[in-house]
């Protein structure tokens, strides 16, 4: 056996594997995880591949430990990742909050399956979208991306690492079993053509470094453990030195910034795919596998002469409030097909603010929508 290093070229692989390869291209060198259907293949691929690129894979005793370990890994200087599905994602919530609070770059892949609870372990759903935003206690901002294909699993995993390093925050990949388990061609460019962002290192002398003092973009540069900073990092509310500061003022300053560093950099973070939006009466807003299914309905509707645009959420969180508001003023209705009982649809409805109707096309999961159902909703909404 020989170490293969970075891949390059065209591969036929599934979304989970593509995500692992994306991570490796993005520079991920530490993975801690725990098996769970339908995300296991991410871990298995990392177990095989990380030794080939000089990284470390460890299977932890559970998802709590996995999430804690990647935070430690990140502070140790390695780009770090874990992957899971609903039940494990629920278990990661506490330490995801620690990641947000300590501004620790890392990537968590959630390949969604149907829940609640153990639900349908092998079958698709998109039921964890709100959990991605609100699943940990307290206040924080989060970035979540929603790939629709293996190629995007590859690309958005790279993007996730870049965003996590740039904004010093955990970034979530919220995909679904359909995308995770589907195999398609994945094109991996030569590594020198892949844009990779590394955490901004401190520029001040070691003794002057304050690990939580932000630059103008609200993000503090980050030194790694072992580099001589001797800093303190805590999940308690803290000041710029990282020292606990048990006051409402410190809370206001710190937590407001944690939220703002994502809110105020929305334009840089949010990525949407828009198709025939101009002049549309109805805009279908969807993501992940549902967006691909919806496209069939959109095309059929267009053939019927309905003016329907497609807005695909590549970034799910932060939510594109402004774009939705803007569109609401111009169209009759949003149609939101998703594999849940209404999650992103609530956000669309909120942002539409009554200016356009919001039609949820919900589905409890287990399989994808019948495109006809979406088509009917489009027809109705266009009237």
């Amino acid at each position, binding site marked *: 056996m020989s170490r293969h290093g970075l891949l390059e070229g*065209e*591969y*036929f692989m*599934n979304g989970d594997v593509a995500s692992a390869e994306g991570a490796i291209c993005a520079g991920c060198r530490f993975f801690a995880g725990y098996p769970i259907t339908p995300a296991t293949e991410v871990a298995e691929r990392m177990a095989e591949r990380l030794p080939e690129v000089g990284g470390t894979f460890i299977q932890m005793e559970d998802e709590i430990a996995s999430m804690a370990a990647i935070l430690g890994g990140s502070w140790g200087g390695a780009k770090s990742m874990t992957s899971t599905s609903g039940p494990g994602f629920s278990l990661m919530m506490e330490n995801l909050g620690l990641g947000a609070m300590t501004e620790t770059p890392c990537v968590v892949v959630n390949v969604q399956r149907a829940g609640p609870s153990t639900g349908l372990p*092998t079958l698709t759903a998109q039921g964890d979208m709100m959990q991605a935003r609100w699943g940990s206690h307290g206040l924080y901002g989060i970035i979540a991306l929603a790939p629709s*294909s293996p190629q995007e699993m590859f690309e958005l995993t790279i993007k996730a690492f870049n965003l996590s390093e740039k904004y010093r925050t955990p970034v979530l990949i919220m995909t679904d079993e*359909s995308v995770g*388990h*589907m*195999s*398609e*061609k994945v094109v991996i460019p030569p590594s020198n053509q892949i844009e990779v962002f590394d955490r901004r290192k401190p520029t001040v002398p070691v003794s002057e470094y304050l690990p939580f003092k932000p630059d103008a973009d609200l993000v503090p540069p980050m030194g790694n453990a072992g580099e001589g900073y001797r800093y303190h990092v805590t999940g308690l509310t803290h000041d710029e030195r990282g020292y606990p500061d048990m006051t409402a003022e410190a809370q206001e300053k710190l937590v407001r910034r944690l939220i703002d560093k994502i809110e105020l950099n929305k334009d840089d973070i949010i990525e949407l795919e828009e198709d025939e939006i101009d002049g549309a009466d109805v805009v279908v807003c969807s993501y992940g*596998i549902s967006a*691909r*299914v919806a*496209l*069939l309905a959109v095309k059929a509707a267009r053939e019927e002469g309905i003016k329907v645009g497609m807005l695909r959420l590549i970034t799910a969180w932060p939510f594109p409030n402004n774009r939705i508001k803007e569109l609401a003023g111009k169209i009759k209705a949003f149609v939101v097909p998703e594999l849940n009982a209404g999650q992103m649809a609530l956000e669309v409805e909120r942002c539409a603010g009554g200016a356009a109707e919001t039609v949820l096309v919900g589905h409890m999961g287990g399989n*994808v929508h019948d*495109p006809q159902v979406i088509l009917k909703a489009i027809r109705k909404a266009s009237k």
Partner: protein
Amino acid sequence: MSRKEIRLSGFGGQGIVLAGLIVGKAASIFDGKNATFTQAYGPEARGGSCSAQLVITDEPAAYPYVTNPVVVVAMSQEAYTKYASQMGEEVQLIIDEDLVVPDKSQENRILKVPATRIAQELGRSAVANIVMIGFLTAVSDVTSVEAMKKAVLDSVPKGTEELNTNAFNRGYECGKERIKAAGENQ
């Protein structure tokens, strides 16, 4: 825009998934088209029914699922009943003749291959899926022969190339024969 949908089915453990991946790889990597491979399985780790679906298109396919297959392969009775027996005339049906007894109504038009038997003759019943792929390549235009051959070699464990090439060829030959025979019968 051309779109071809294919379903391979059987029970878990027969290598259906690998077969599907080979077809997908052949189409997308070696034929330069786009292919989407998906699978369906029961809760069993092994022994349940199992199906691999492929959508092969020129442009990337949005909708990745099979609704109107042009070819259905069934390697178990259960799979045949579930996936093949209801299919209309326009759908090409292929079965392992030793494992599936087709409905009377389809008896005549169905393509039969003793894939498992051929594999056993080659010394490893595990390569029945490759025999089937050879057959499929011969009787349909799912992918080019070259692409499929490359995909097989690219997907099987090192050291088993010869065995698998043989399996592919035996299946392919069998396919060509059966096609010819069918043509002659008409």
